[in-house]
Structures are given as C-alpha cells and as structure tokens.
C-alpha cells in the first residue's frame, strides 16, 4: 500500500494554496478526514444512525450533512445489518461508503455481511466486483458508559481474511489512517478508541495525505524491551515507557495500528534487538490479537527471546458495568510490573 500522496481528484478546494492546519482531538481528526475525503472524491458517502442532522453521537460526522447534503450523509433506519449490507451494495457500485456503527457492541449484527460478503466480494468474483467500504465504530472501555458501549472485540474482525483492521491512537494517525482506509479499494474496519476521542490535541495539516496501512508505528525507540500496543492503551504504554526510562530500562514502543495484515517485520526486528517483549491490549486475552503477536514471536522469534513474552490484557470476562470497569482496564502499573518482571529473566 505505502503512503499515497494522492492529490484531490475532483474536489473543489484549491490545491495551490497551503493546506490549513488545525489543532484537534482524535474525534475531530476523524471529522476532518471524512470532510477531506468527501471533498476529494464524490464517491465517498457517509451513512449510519444519527450521523446526519445530529452529527453522530460522538460528533464525528458533525457538519458533514450541512456541507455535503443528505444524499452523501445518510441517516439510516436503526439496523446495523442493513447498514453493513447496503454498504456492500453501494461499494460494489463504485461508491465508497463510510458506515458508522454507533458502538462496537452493536457491530455483531453486521458480521454476516462483513464476513460473508464484504471480505469476500472481490475474491468470490475473481476481481469483477470489489468492496471499497469502511466500517467505522467507536470502541473500548473506560468511558463510564452503559453495557455494550465498551467492547474491545477487534480480534473477531482481525480473524477474517479479506478485511483490514485499523486502529488509530492519536489525532494525526486517526486523520492519516482514516484517509488511507477510505482510499483503500478493499473493506477496512476502522476502530476508534472512544476513551481517547478527546484526550489530547495535536496539530494536523489538513493536506489529504494518507498514512500507510501496512506498517506499525514505532513511537519511541528503545533497546531493552519492546512494548507493543494499539488504540487507547498506547497512552498507558507510553507512560509506562517513560517511567521505565527513569528506572534505567529503555523501552521501545510500537503502535501496531493495522491489526490485519500485521506488519510483522517491524515487530520482529524490534524484538530481535531488545530480546524482550510485553504486549498490552484492552481485549480479553483468549484468541486475541495479542495472542497472535505472541504466537508469531514463539514461532519466528524464539531464539532471540531472552524472556517469556509478557502480556497485559483485559480480563477474560465481559466488561463490568462501569462501577468496576477500572478493575478490567489494563493500567500503567501493570505494564511496568510486567515489563520489570520480563527484565528480570537473565
């Protein structure tokens, strides 16, 4: 895939002038990327529940309907299977639907269309039809929300061949990766960690430049141990890395970003260098993305591992109602403790 320095193909915005710069949160970056993509390509349409007049329950689509009209920003009836399934139909017709599922906990009804159709349309027709759709959904816990509003079941999507599964962990990456997801000619599941929707602001050049979907991002270089994470947990991971630095342990931090296909080369190279690794995820551990990375290391990296692959996971239970959700969420303390334990192996 690589970085595509795509120029606007049919947008109205002048390409001569400098792109504007905005200081934005992650959810605002999503909004910026959507607007940019819609401006660049009239085939991009947005659909979902409450995405129009209301601008999305998290305001990710705010202003889009006013700007691009109700034919390109569609409030659908309340039906997730429908949202996914009509996206397949639209995408086969050459539109680029960006569908919002209000919360990941309501995405299960889309699975049949995503697994059996979106992921397979190109393969099933030997390239005759394909499915350039994006399914966006806020995900993850820590927002004191009701049941089903805090899921981290990215592994379910990541298991399916034919899908790309992408998770941004900062406003900049949200902007660049969402543009990439929309440009991509194949279906992309784009998971937005709602806990960090408004956590930090970053300056973004609204230049329409996509980030690559086939690489991990090394957010901090280090030599002693590799900390691997994605999504909201990247923040605790970075915090832990800084604490470890203070304790004289140099941690490298990798944001996996695309969970399928995974950029194994970057991960392997880092662990080859450090010899130690901790994987941090909010999801339950059983058959998860974390399991996959650990398994890959067991298969391909066994001889440079100086210590067992450490893992900090969510618990193997459904996310507790919010009074107790903090017991579920991996925290900085656990990451540090696991890293230190991993360092203790000779």
């Amino acid at each position, binding site marked *: 895939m690589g970085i595509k320095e795509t120029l606007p193909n049919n947008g109205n915005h002048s390409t001569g002038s400098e792109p504007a710069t905005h200081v934005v949160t992650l959810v605002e970056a999503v909004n910026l990327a959507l607007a940019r993509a819609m401006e660049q390509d009239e085939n991009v349409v947005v659909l979902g*529940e409450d995405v129009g007049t209301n601008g999305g329950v998290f305001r990710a689509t705010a202003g889009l309907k006013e700007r691009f009209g109700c034919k390109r920003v569609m409030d659908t009836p309340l039906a997730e299977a429908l949202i996914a399934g009509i996206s397949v139909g639209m995408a086969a017709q050459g539109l680029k639907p960006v569908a919002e599922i209000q919360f990941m906990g309501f995405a299960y009804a889309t699975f049949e269309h995503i697994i059996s159709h979106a992921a397979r349309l190109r393969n099933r027709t030997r390239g005759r039809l394909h499915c350039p759709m994006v399914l966006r959904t806020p995900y993850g816990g820590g927002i004191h929300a*009701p049941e089903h509003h805090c899921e981290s079941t990215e592994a379910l999507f990541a298991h399916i061949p034919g899908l790309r599964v992408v998770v941004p962990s900062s406003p900049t990456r949200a902007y660049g990766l969402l543009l990439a997801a929309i440009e991509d000619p194949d279906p992309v599941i784009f998971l937005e960690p709602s806990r960090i929707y408004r956590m930090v602001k970053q300056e973004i050049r609204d230049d329409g430049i996509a980030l690559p979907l086939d690489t991990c991002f090394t957010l901090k270089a280090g030599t002693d141990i590799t900390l691997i994470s994605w999504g909201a947990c990247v923040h605790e991971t970075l915090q832990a890395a800084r604490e470890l630095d203070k304790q004289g342990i140099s941690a490298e931090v990798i944001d996996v970003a695309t969970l399928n296909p995974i950029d194994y080369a970057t991960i392997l190279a880092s662990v080859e260098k450090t010899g130690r690794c901790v994987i941090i995820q909010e999801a339950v551990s059983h058959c998860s993305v974390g399991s996959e990375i650990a398994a890959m290391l067991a298969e391909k990296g066994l001889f440079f591992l100086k210590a067992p692959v450490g893992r900090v996971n969510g618990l193997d239970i459904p996310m507790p109602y919010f*009074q*107790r959700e*903090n017991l579920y969420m991996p925290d900085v303390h656990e990451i540090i403790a696991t890293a230190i334990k991993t360092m203790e192996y000779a």
Partner: protein
Amino acid sequence: MQFTTTPYTEHQLIEPGGNATGTLPGWMQDQDLLLKFYRTMNLIRVFDKRAIALQRTGQMGTYASCLGQEAIGTAIGCALKTEDVFVPYYRDQAAQFLRGVPLYQLLQYWGGTEWGNHFTGTAREDFPNCVPIATQITHAAGIATAFKIRGQKRAALVTCGDGATSRGDFYEPLNLAGVWQLPMVLVVNNNQWAISVPRALQTGAPTIAQKAMAAGIEGFQVDGNDVCALYEAIRYSLDKAHAGKGATLIEAMSYRLCDHTTADDATRYRSHEEVNAAWLKEPVKRLQTFLHQRGLWDEQKEQQLITDCQQKVEQAVKDFQSQPQQPVDDLFDYLFDTTPPHLIVQRERTKQKAARLAGGNHHGH
C-alpha cells in the same frame, strides 16, 4: 394492488383535555385502579427528574428518561399478571416498579452495577433492560415458546421503541409469534424519535401497527398518552394470549418529551414548537383532569401525593447510595455456574489490583 388499509382510529378513552371520548367501559368504575395509574405515573415522573439530577451531578451514569411516556409503563405494569413475564426496554421504569423492582435498584442499574438487574419477587423471571435495540423481542418469543411448550397459561409482554421496528429482531420474532401462535404481546412505544431520527425516516409505512400484517397477527394503534386506553388494549391482548389465541402488536402513540438520554441534546435536531405541542397531550395532566372532573381527586390529595412521591424517591436515592460496593469476586463468579481455573487466577490478581487502586495509585487512571 390487492391490499388496503382502512384508515386507523387510534384507540382512545380520554382525550387530551381530560374528557371521556364516549361511554366508558365498565372496568373504569374501579377507582382504585384509576388512582393507582395516577399515583404511579406521578411517582415515576418524580423519580425520573431525580435520576436526571443524579446523573448531572456525577452521582450516576447515563440515564434514559421516560418523561411523557409514563402511561405506557404504568398500563403495562397494571395489566400484567404475576405469572406473566415482562421483557422491558429502557423506558419502562413504571412497569418495572409495578413488577416489584424497588426504585433504588433502577438507580443501581443506571449507576453501573449488575446488581441492578438482580430482581426478586414478581419480577424474578423478568428480563433486565436490553441495550442492543430490539433483541429483547426475540427473547420474548423464546419465553412465549417455553410457555407454549409447557402448556402454561402465561404470556410474555415485551416493549421496544419506534426505532427498534427497523431491525430484523423486530420482524423475525413477530413472524414466529404469528406462525407458532405464541402468547406474546409487543408494545411499541412510538415516541416519534429514535435519538435524532424522526419516525418518518424510520419507515415508509404510515403506521407501525400495520407491520403486524407481515406476521399475520393483529395490530393496532393506541393513544399512548391515555393510560386507560392503553390498559384496555394491553388487557385485551394479554387475555387473548392467555386464551391461546395468539400474539398482538400494539403501537402506543406517545412523545419523548425528554432528551434521548442524559448524553443527548435534543435541541440539535428538533424544534421547541414540536415539543411544546406534545406537552399538551401528555398523560399525567390528562388523567389528573379526568379524575378531578369525576370528583376522584383534589388539590389536597395532590399535595399529599407530591410529598409522598418525593419521600419515596429520596429514600430510594439513599438506599442506592448506601449500597456496599460489590466484591471483586462478583466479576468472576457469575460468568459460569462453576468458576473455571483461569478465572480463579484472574480473580486473585484482580483482588490485588483492587487493593492497590483502593490504596491510591499514581500510575493508574
């Protein structure tokens, strides 16, 4: 070509001004029942306001108000038999209360603990609030199937909103109820909005009631602000279910006078005019006027009721706030009948974490 709808008449016994629309049915002689309607609706309205305040002041989580829709839950709660099973959605506070769920437990649910679903008494077989829209309708069909298999004279009553009628989980169990003649009643609270999506954008069908035809069952519209009309329609449907005569779809025409939840701001997508117009039809005032006219109610009783409701609600808030925190074990021990080894390990680790977090933690959140 071949199918026609005769223009529906919304079933109504008391019009918005509080007057009877015609000769009233015999059961409305039952003053106690009418007063129970009124008292319940008032209590729930006071409760609802207090719950919103708790959320606003950070003492509770997101809350879904039932303002303006109290008649529906009240009618349901009064019409259900003890042996029936109630499968609610999240605006059925009145019905849940009438089924014996204490108010403080409703707060517990919205306050973020699973113990808010641990009903006892009449409600012990009732389902908890169902967050994934419409899925409860399928559960209700399953419950009704169990009754049918066992030959029990019981019914499953389930509710949902107008938005829910767009989902497969609305149609699939309704169709089943038709073909298996299940003892099921589905009450749709058509409050005209699904968050920001108005009814007109939810379906092209002029009524939700007519969706019953897709299942070959009976469906009709009722004035959802007329607790008496609702009660009558629900009783009719439950009796039918108990008699083994199949399922019914009731479209209760109401209006969501509140925001969708405390996380919503409805002024973004609907006009004050529309809301103000809806206030003229709301259920509590309507019944009050009716009771006044019949000499069943007066200002003194009203004052007494208000005090009474406030006391009850304050007591519920106190009870809610004095509940002990649930032990760490509870997170692990209700997943399976017997907690498996890996969860026992995680349980012990989590106890240590809880202790650490309780002791103050500089890294955590």
